[in-house]
């Protein structure tokens, strides 16, 4: 069974139809990249996986999104629990204006996952998993806002990891980072892939090619092609995919 699956998923912003019946399976412990020009629906699609679109007024969804085979849009679903299981990292690092420690401890405290020394352990574990521990272990109580952009983004990943998610959604996580910080995040993604299912939206096609196992190409709200990344970037089956990744359009 796939970790995530959409079945004939349609999405509307008021009258605007942003997704036209997308059916897609996301494999467990793999990195799946979603590529396509701006406005093609890939970020909208990503946000369907943890119901982030629910917060936008005037939106409507038709179809099913399954996590481990269960529809996350069913009426009895606890959205807070869903977002714990399906975490999200955004385009711009968005640490809280608090200490490094408190940023990572925030989720576990709210969800009452740990306290005292167990919380300390969880914070350390999360920072280690986000490849940030060595850089911040001596300044855990200084402000998160003093970190570099790349460090802040890894802190945000640590914050997601602290609540023990199963899936991590990344919406252009490197677009505000320099090349060195970008490569560190990519290294981190490869490590996290051992334990988590990752879905990443990226405008950087080389990044999709480097880091992902599967790539889906979106165009005007349709999933045009979805296949192994190696195939998409060397022998795409669709003319439209070829034209997009070779820069002939978009």
């Amino acid at each position, binding site marked *: 069974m796939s970790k995530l699956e959409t079945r004939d998923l349609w999405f509307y912003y008021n009258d605007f139809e942003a997704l036209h019946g997308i059916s897609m399976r996301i494999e467990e412990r793999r990195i799946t990249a979603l590529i396509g020009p701006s406005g093609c629906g890939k970020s909208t699609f990503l946000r369907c996986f943890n119901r982030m679109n629910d917060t936008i007024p005037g939106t409507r969804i038709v179809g099913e999104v399954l996590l481990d085979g269960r529809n996350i849009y069913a009426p009895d679903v606890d959205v807070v629990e869903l977002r714990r299981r399906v975490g999200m990292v955004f385009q711009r690092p968005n640490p809280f204006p608090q200490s490094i420690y408190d940023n990572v401890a925030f989720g576990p405290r709210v969800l009452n996952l740990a306290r005292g020394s167990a919380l300390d352990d969880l914070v350390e574990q999360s920072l280690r998993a986000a490849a940030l521990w060595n850089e911040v272990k001596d300044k855990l109580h200084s402000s998160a806002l003093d970190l570099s952009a790349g460090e802040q983004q890894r802190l945000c990943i640590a914050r997601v990891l602290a609540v023990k998610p199963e899936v991590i959604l990344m919406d252009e996580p490197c677009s505000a980072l320099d090349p060195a910080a970008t490569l560190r995040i990519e290294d981190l993604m490869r490590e996290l892939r051992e334990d988590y299912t990752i879905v990443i939206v990226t405008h950087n096609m080389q990044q999709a090619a480097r880091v992902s196992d599967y790539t889906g190409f979106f165009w005007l709200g349709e999933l045009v092609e979805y296949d192994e990344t190696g195939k998409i970037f*060397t*022998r795409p089956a669709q003319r439209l995919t070829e034209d997009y*990744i070779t820069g002939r359009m978009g």
Partner: protein
Amino acid sequence: MSKARALFDRELTDLRDNILHLGNMVEAAIEGAVQALREQDKELAHQVITGDAEINTKRYDIEEQCLRLIATQQPAAGDLRAIVAAIHIVTELERMGDYASGIAELATRLADQPHLKPLIDVPRMAEIDGEMIRASLDAYFKHDPDLALETAKRDAEIDGLYDQVYRELLTYMLSDPQTITRATYLLWVAHKLERIADRVTNICERVIFISTGEFQELNF
């Protein structure tokens, strides 16, 4: 289309022109080598031998152009396949140039003795080789797998002519040991012409790969 893409397309066209130029150089070398053999023209043979250095240089220039395109454009899909194929194709062409130079060398050795027999099949082989080179490059430029397949099939004609030359020369050698050296040299010439067609077949395989994404071993 973006300006960057238009610029990339211009560079790909330039790459194409360079490959075509190299193909013409190789074709001329083969033709020159066989003409030198037929007309016992040592001067022409010498020109072909020294001209091989230019072919080698051109090949490395093109390879460098491909590496630069890969590094600066990060090509994908059809572009990537075409550029990687270009590197293989120029390597094949360069080796064909070496065969032409080898034929010219043999032409020099054969220039001072009377012809063993009228040369008919050997020039015919060279002619077909030339046609095959042109057609294979045409197929590369047009991304035409059918033309590539048709071109590769002509390897059978070359193999047939080679067998014929081989049998004929063997008869000469058996009936008169005096002819062995000359016949052996001629056989080497025919063998090089036969190898050139094999190299063209390799180019055709590349063309099929860039057009269809499938590797196909062509053996006719």
